[in-house]
């Protein structure tokens, strides 16, 4: 009885040990890789399915247009990724995009009117863009301050900002649109349309911007102390605090990043439409969060990648555009998007459970394996 169990135990251990060692080399384990690539698999599936049903789907011009749409989702979602990595959530991104678009549109359309002095100040386009991004950063800083200083849950703080920022976007021009953003050579503020419609070496500038945001964000996440600390706070805030990390500062930082990315999205949409609508990017927070979770970032924080988010944005973007192309109504698109988010989170849960099971089982065998490796090697 005992010897039987002993051999069973031995066999279980040696085979389990080999397998676990493979799985546990975090970046290299093939199962993990497959799970991490699930968004990529989904993207390929979507592309194949729509290419079959609709011949114009897989053409150069359509792919280019779709990628421009993807860029808009992706840039916003990159900012959201930092927030979710820190175990927070930013629901205000859509409204912040709308507000910064309206602020920029107003500055291009009417300039800055200083009433007491009766003077109108005009800004050139780079300055207008900077101001727009500054509005986003400011909204993010307010979110961060409310969350860290007042202890309001991120969900509520940013839900409040969702309403407040949208309200200000409407207030800016009493609910009306700024229809003409072409600028005036006399005011040196022409060329805002380049942002959303221009090309650099035949590549749409929107896509160039996406690449820039992607590279900078990956750098911040992987190669700066700030990025590592974001992961740490999301993984275990208390452990981060005891490691001397200034948790509140980092948290404010992620909401500022999210605000800037949201503002960039708002400016891009405004530029593409050549008009600033107060309801720009309404409910885009759904797209952003969907892209993040599809890309494999855990809503519990601490796990996820920027690259995954961008792939997630491709899935969302291609899915929406594909459905339009096939002629599915906008309402069904909403149903599809919502379902995709829930499915993505369910998969994430499955992955987490699997991971913790593997880790728990590994804890018992790893030491033996290491000891035996050391004695033989």
């Amino acid at each position, binding site marked *: 009885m005992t010897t039987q169990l002993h051999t069973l135990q031995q066999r*279980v251990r040696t085979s389990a040990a080999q397998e676990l060692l493979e799985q546990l080399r975090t970046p290299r384990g093939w199962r993990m890789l497959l799970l991490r690539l699930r968004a990529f698999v989904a993207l390929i599936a979507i592309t194949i399915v729509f290419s079959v049903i609709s011949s114009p789907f897989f053409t150069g011009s359509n792919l280019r247009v779709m990628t421009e749409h993807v860029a808009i989702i992706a840039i916003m979602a990159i900012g959201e990724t930092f927030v979710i990595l820190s175990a927070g959530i930013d629901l205000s991104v859509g409204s912040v995009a709308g507000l910064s678009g309206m602020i920029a549109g107003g500055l291009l359309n009417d300039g800055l009117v200083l009433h007491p002095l009766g003077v109108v100040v005009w800004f050139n386009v780079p300055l207008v863009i900077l101001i727009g991004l500054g509005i986003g950063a400011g909204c993010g800083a307010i979110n961060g301050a409310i969350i860290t200083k007042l202890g309001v849950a991120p969900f509520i703080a940013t839900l409040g900002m969702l309403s407040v920022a949208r309200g200000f976007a409407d207030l800016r021009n009493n609910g009306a649109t700024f229809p003409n953003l072409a600028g005036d050579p006399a005011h040196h503020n022409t060329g805002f349309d380049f942002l959303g419609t221009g090309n650099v070496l035949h590549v749409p500038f929107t896509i160039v911007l996406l690449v820039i945001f992607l590279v900078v964000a990956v750098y911040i996440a992987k*190669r700066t102390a700030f990025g590592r600390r974001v992961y740490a706070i999301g993984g275990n805030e208390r452990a981060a605090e005891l490691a001397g990390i200034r948790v509140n500062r980092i948290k404010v930082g992620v909401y500022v990043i999210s605000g800037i990315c949201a503002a960039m999205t708002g400016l891009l949409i405004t530029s593409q439409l050549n008009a600033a609508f107060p309801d720009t990017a309404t409910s885009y927070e759904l797209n952003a969060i969907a892209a993040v979770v599809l890309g494999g970032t855990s809503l519990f924080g601490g796990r996820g990648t920027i690259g995954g988010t961008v792939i997630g944005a491709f899935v969302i973007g291609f899915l929406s555009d594909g459905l339009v192309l096939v002629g599915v109504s906008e309402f069904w698109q909403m149903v599809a998007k919502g379902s995709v988010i829930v499915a993505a989170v369910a998969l994430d849960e499955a992955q987490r459970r699997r991971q913790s099971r*593997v880790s728990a089982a590994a804890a018992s065998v790893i030491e033996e394996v290491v000891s035996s490796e050391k004695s033989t090697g």
Partner: protein
Amino acid sequence: MSASRDGADVVLRAEGVSKVFGGTVALNGVDFNIYRGKVNALVGENGAGKSTLMGILAGVHEPTTGRILLGGEEIRIGSPREAGAYGIRLIHQELLLFPNLSVAENIFAGSELQSPVGVRLREQEAEAAKLLERLGQRVDPRALLGDLPVGAQQMVAICKALSQRVRVLIMDEPTSALSTREVASLFEVIRGLVADGVSVVYISRRLEEILEISDFVTVLRDGKLVAEAPTAEIDTHWIVEQMIGHDPDALFPYEPRPVGRPLLEAEDLTLPRPGGGLWLDRVSLTVRAGEIVGVYGLMGAGRTELLQTLIGERPEAVGRVRVDGASVDGQSIGGRIAHGLFLVPEDRQREGLVQALSVKQNVSLASLDGFGTIAGLSLRREASEVGEVVRDVGVKVPDIDFEVTSLSGGNQQKVVVAKALLTDPKVLLMDDPMRGIDVGAKTELYRIMKRLAAGGLAILFTTSDLMEVLGMADRILVMARGRITRELTRDEATSEALVAASNPHAVEAVAG
């Protein structure tokens, strides 16, 4: 093995029970007897298989092999509910009660006395009052559970178990949060239950208690049953030897070290307790280079709060702290780490490690600024420095990119120590460092502590384990009710002196 011993017959028996989780054998062919109407103590180190065995008897786990006999008949226990039907009840260490509900509602949670129109609250309260009276407790059944002291909550948990037919009552570490007085009253209740014919399984790490309350002692080690004996025939030394498999005196081999200048000086640390009273009451202490100082005290004595105050986690605390002569008052945790303090926290999982990060990223977490370059973090330097310190403390891991959750408790603790060492500390604060790690890892961790101290570090650790503090510390500070009640050198220290000084009721006398 016979079905009876010393005139006591076996009510419940686990026969040849094994349990394999994934690749781990948690229990290996265990024969465990529960004698009728007796207190059966079950002891063993963490990970010895106590919880698994109790889980099997209470229907939480199913055994991989082996069988369960109740009164000689084989039974299958598929769920906690089925265990309850057989009269087997388990009281968890964490009690698993609802602080937001009343005492009566807690007792009847899950088995409410129902009428067609809802729960019969009055009747529940009356029944609860009867049960509480049976245990000699003066507790209002309508009181909110969360408002009661832990000892009274423990009694409510027992009432809950007794609210239905109970033959075997399993109590998992029931005294871990109780005061001396509450323990005495719990023992009275247990004796009463046993007199009524209830068989009790008593799991505890406090060996003195086991000798006092139990009739039989069963020892588990590494998933195997290593010994069973009537309590009358054994002593503490025997239990410890069975638990750890060798002579306990060899667990912490001591050697004296030279002592240098004071590295940590605290004066009059006082920490108010929310809702009145003090966590810390004018605590002053000094730890010198090369010294390992132990803070011994019971739960609630203020040990953890002392270390939290030292590391700067309690901004509301007053008093002065100097590290190597430099004041760190008013500094944040980060600032104090920079001055050479580091806290290895009590709860590795909740406070020490970031589970989502790799071993390497955990170790470097407190030292990231040191790896900064103009081009961002130097990942190569990070890997080489982390690799060095990980080898130095002997973390057993094939690759520092492994998930930290894939390590055992002892190894995880070494990761936290490695994180501390990478910050180049002068003073290491360790809150219950041996908690939840196995014997081999304890000896190894102690060896690391000694080596660090010999290298000029000052170490201040806390524990509620007499053996640990007597074995490891050069000097012992005893705490009770937020005060240091006694300071003893290694030569002066005896377990009797420590127990006396740690008694919360003795504080007035000392302070008087």
